[in-house]
């Protein structure tokens, strides 16, 4: 069974979702929780069985789909994808367990389980076509969640979300097809396997074009400035559960794909585009932080803060050294936990007051002390306080990029200032002061259902902040092999110099050796 665990992880929720159609309405919640829990347990088992000292792919599965074109059902995990898969199953579980939505709950849970399939599929796929299929399929449940359970502008928001990201991925698809064609030209065989592609050394001008094609798909998903405007609408209109999954997992697809595709496939292009992308990342960090500061709606603050943090992740990815890339992968997890928790928290107050405007609140700390405490912890995690999960990722990302550029890192470091500004200002508006609005005077503190979702997140946020090693170590090992691969493949002298050579270090199996 462990040999096929990835297939199991992908298709178990889908099968369960199908069965869900025949489950009675009132037992649907329990059913959903049970399925999500089994799935989560399976993913933990995957972690348990995963060998952290091996840097290459593990639990690989392969079955031909269209043999003539080299399209295979190819799966595998390494340290980079392992934890994002666990994060996906974790958040699906938490999302369903703390669901407060009451309308059409059956459909919602079935949709969530389908979504879970696509998410795990994206992160486990090692074949470009399989990856692409899951990537696009993930849009559908999200579209449905926003469109069916969203706010007043839900149709506009969901269509915008769908078309925007879809456009980007089509450009990416063209890039993939061209990449496969190039592989065919070079070897006389078709292949869509990413691992096969890794071996290919592309001429630099090809790399630039292909990098650009992939970049559009990924950048819109992340979302990077200036492609970010679908996100505030999507978050603004989506129900709590939609925002949580969107922020915690779906955005990570973009950054994950940068690490999985762009860096190892196009090392020279990555170096070539490093500074332009870093500048975009810095704009993301500072500009969206300012926009977040100006918001009146707490959910928009969190939404824009997501974009700002994604900027740090991108920066870390394009540090192109082990510290930076490991940091950015870790920060993906951290941001998932923290922003997911923040969206859940916003949902808590929205359920009670049906408004997200901060001017409606004030003085909540005295009415809802437990809520204020959890919000405070998560806010501090978002601000990147040491011993919380975000700090490890941010620190490593910035540290990594510092090797490449002093000035840009100094500018990007402003993140820790502007991040504190908007978060503290929002916290102050909501929680401090005296209660002025009578509607707030008798609000109930967080209840048990909500705590089920929030407490584990708080624990994870602090646990991985204090002791990140169990997660960071496998990530680090896999990232080392990626970096080594990039160094080996790099052609230009600048790329050779910018991407460190790790071959002198002991105990690293490179990607080639692993196969």
């Amino acid at each position: 069974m462990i040999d096929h665990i990835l297939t199991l992880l992908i298709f178990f929720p889908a099968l369960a979702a199908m069965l869900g159609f025949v489950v009675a309405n009132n037992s649907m919640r329990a059913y959903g929780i049970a399925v999500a829990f089994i799935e989560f347990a399976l993913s933990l088992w995957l972690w348990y069985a995963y060998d952290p000292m091996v840097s290459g792919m593990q639990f690989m599965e392969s079955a031909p789909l269209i043999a003539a074109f080299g399209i295979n059902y190819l799966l595998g995990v390494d340290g980079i994808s392992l934890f994002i898969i666990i994060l996906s199953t974790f958040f699906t579980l938490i999302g369903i367990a703390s669901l407060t939505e009451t309308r059409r709950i059956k459909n919602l849970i079935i949709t969530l389980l389908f979504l879970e399939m696509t998410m795990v599929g994206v992160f486990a796929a090692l074949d470009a076509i399989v990856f692409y299929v899951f990537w696009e399929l993930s849009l559908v449940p999200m579209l449905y969640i926003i469109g069916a359970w969203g706010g007043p502008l839900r149709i506009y928001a969901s269509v915008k979300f769908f078309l925007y990201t879809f456009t980007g991925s089509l450009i990416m698809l063209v890039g993939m097809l061209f990449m496969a064609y190039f592989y065919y030209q070079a070897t006389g065989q078709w292949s869509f396997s990413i691992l096969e592609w890794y071996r290919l050394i592309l001429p630099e001008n090809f790399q630039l074009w292909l990098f650009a094609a992939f970049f559009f798909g990924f950048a819109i998903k992340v979302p990077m400035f200036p492609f970010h405007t679908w996100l505030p609408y999507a978050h603004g209109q989506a129900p709590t559960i939609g925002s949580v999954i969107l922020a915690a997992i779906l955005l990570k697809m973009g950054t994950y794909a940068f690490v999985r595709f762009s860096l190892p496939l196009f090392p020279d292009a990555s170096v070539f585009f490093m500074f332009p992308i870093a500048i975009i990342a810095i704009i993301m960090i500072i500009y969206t932080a300012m926009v977040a500061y100006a918001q009146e709606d707490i959910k928009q603050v969190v939404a824009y803060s997501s974009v700002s943090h994604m900027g740090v992740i991108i920066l870390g990815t394009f540090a192109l050294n082990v510290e930076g890339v490991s940091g950015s992968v870790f920060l993906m997890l951290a941001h998932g936990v923290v922003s997911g928790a923040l969206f859940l928290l916003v949902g808590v107050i929205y359920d009670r007051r049906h408004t997200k405007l901060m001017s409606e609140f004030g003085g909540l700390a005295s009415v809802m002390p437990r809520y204020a405490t959890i919000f405070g912890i998560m806010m501090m995690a978002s601000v990147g306080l040491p011993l919380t999960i975000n700090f490890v990722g941010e620190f490593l990302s910035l540290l990594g990029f510092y090797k490449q550029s002093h000035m840009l890192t100094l500018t990007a470091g402003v993140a820790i200032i502007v991040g504190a500004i908007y978060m503290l200002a929002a916290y102050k508006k909501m929680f401090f002061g005296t209660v002025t609005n009578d509607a707030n005077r008798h609000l109930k503190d967080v209840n048990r259902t909500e705590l089920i979702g929030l407490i584990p997140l708080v624990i994870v946020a602090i646990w991985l902040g204090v002791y990140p090693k169990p997660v960071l170590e496998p990530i680090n090992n896999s990232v080392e092999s990626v970096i080594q691969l990039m160094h080996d493949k790099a052609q230009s002298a600048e790329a050779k110099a910018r991407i460190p050579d790790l071959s002198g270090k002991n105990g690293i199996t490179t990607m080639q050796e692993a196969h």
Partner: protein
Amino acid sequence: MELYLYIALFAPLVGSLYASLFSRSPKSQHVGIVASGLLFTSFVSSAILLSYVMGGHTVHTEMMTWIAAGDLYIPFGFVVDQVSVVMMMVVTIVSTVVHVYSIGYMDHDKGFNRFFAWLSAFVFSMMVLVMSDNFAGLFIGWEGVGLCSWGLIGFWYHKESATWAANEAFIMNRIADLGMLIGIFLIYWNTGSLQYDVVFAEVGNLQIVVVTWIGIFLFIGAMGKSAQFPLHTWLADAMEGPTPVSALIHAATMVTAGVYLVVRANPIYDLIPNVGIFIASLGAFVALFAASMALVNRDMKRIIAYSTLSQLGYMFVAAGLGAYWVALFHLMAHAFFKALLFLGAGNVMHAMHDELDPFKMGGLRKVMKGTFIMMTLASVALAGIYPFAGFFSKDLILEVGFVEHHYVIYTVLLVTAGLTAFYSFRLVALIFHGEERYKLFGIHPHEAYKFMLVAMSPLLVLAMIAGAFKMTYFQLVMNLLPATQYHIHSQTTFWIMTIGTQLFVIAAILFAYKKYANSGVSVPDGTSKMENSFVYKLLWNQYYIPKIYDEVFSKPYAELSRIAWKQIDLKIVDATVDAIANGIYKTGENTRHIQNGNLSSMLRWMVVGLVVLMTLAVAFSVGYNVVGA
């Protein structure tokens, strides 16, 4: 010994967690007692460690790995050496006193339990800060104390001014933390490690320009925590927090973290004397600058806060000039008498029902004898009168300036010493002497609980006798810090200077008494000539710096943010995307008339299409033949 290390470190954390368990229930005395007891345990452990370190050993232990990625390896490592043990003693003594004191001070507060949770958490962070054996660990503590400071300044969160001050403090510190972070990055990429011992061993091999940048960036970090100009405004505003907090955090411990950093990083600063001169000059400037603001202020706690700022300036002068042990010594002495002064002010505040204007007090010595004695003695120590603690530490800094031939700095510090004496005793005179002006306001003051006074007494004793430990202390820290003795070579000069300084200070004290202890003092109403003079206004408004910050940074930032959102994000970025989508949509909207269902017009379009295709085919084949030929 590791056991004691961990006890000293983690006892406050346990206390904090214990208190936070009850943070939502009403006041329970046992929370305060348990937290204080654990703090005392921590103090005892520190004392045991002190005696161990005095025996010439150090304790260095690694608890576990924190971050390991690439070549970076950061453990939770702790070191108890001559410098950190001194800090540990200062922190645990002052915080134990403050904890016990707070049991009385926060007696009637709803957030009693929450207060102890924060306060103990602060002590834990501070211990991490001083005990870590690497820069990243220091940074953990550094941010941790910032967080607790935020929580404690904004402790009374229903007050707008308190939460504003809390956010201001946090954000200002963050600005400096960025500098510190960059310093850490520089250290890592140049030495490959963040462990103190590795870095300090390696730093000599680096290019001097790199070391200079490291020094500058680390000092930027120190500037924020220690509220040096231009990041000083938060400290005075931080007085919104409960007074024990001001005593512990904003006088004795957290604000001295910057000094500790410079002292700890002395191998770095030794290599870059130019940066040292800058630090010293800035310190001297801040000393005078802050003292001048204290001269006219009418808020008891703010006066003491400015005095703290001024004394931090002194410490930086010593640290900048390479007299690290002197800086640390003054840090220690200052912690004792300044905390005492603040706690005394807390008693007065309680007695006066949170009235802070000393002009509305007067004559309190009759009702508050204990507090009166303590505050007077603390002020004497602050003014630097022999044989109190301040004399030994502060005069030493003056001597350092003199011996190192920085006469400008020396003069500035000397003048500041006079100002310090003046404003300290202006405060004492206004509060405790003269007419009982508080009666006009219908206040009935009372002395604080006895156990609070008892709790304060260790600080009183230390403020009086700390100077006696000077040589013991020197013997201790010279193992780690440059053991330069600062002696003025000529005996005559030495005596002239010492006695001259003493006379100058005493004159300032007497002047303050003469001016403010008589019965003619009344509550200023803004009409007197002095209050309308330019200098008074300048000082009263803190050189207009908070206003300038507000106008130059806060408001434009808010405005810019609004523009970024409303104008750029919505009207440019998003509008462009929508325009593209709308363009496509409009094209469809316009061309759908082709599909009007009318067979003959559709046939016509068909013919048009045919013609176009044929034209293209002809054009391409002609073009191909031309090129092909």
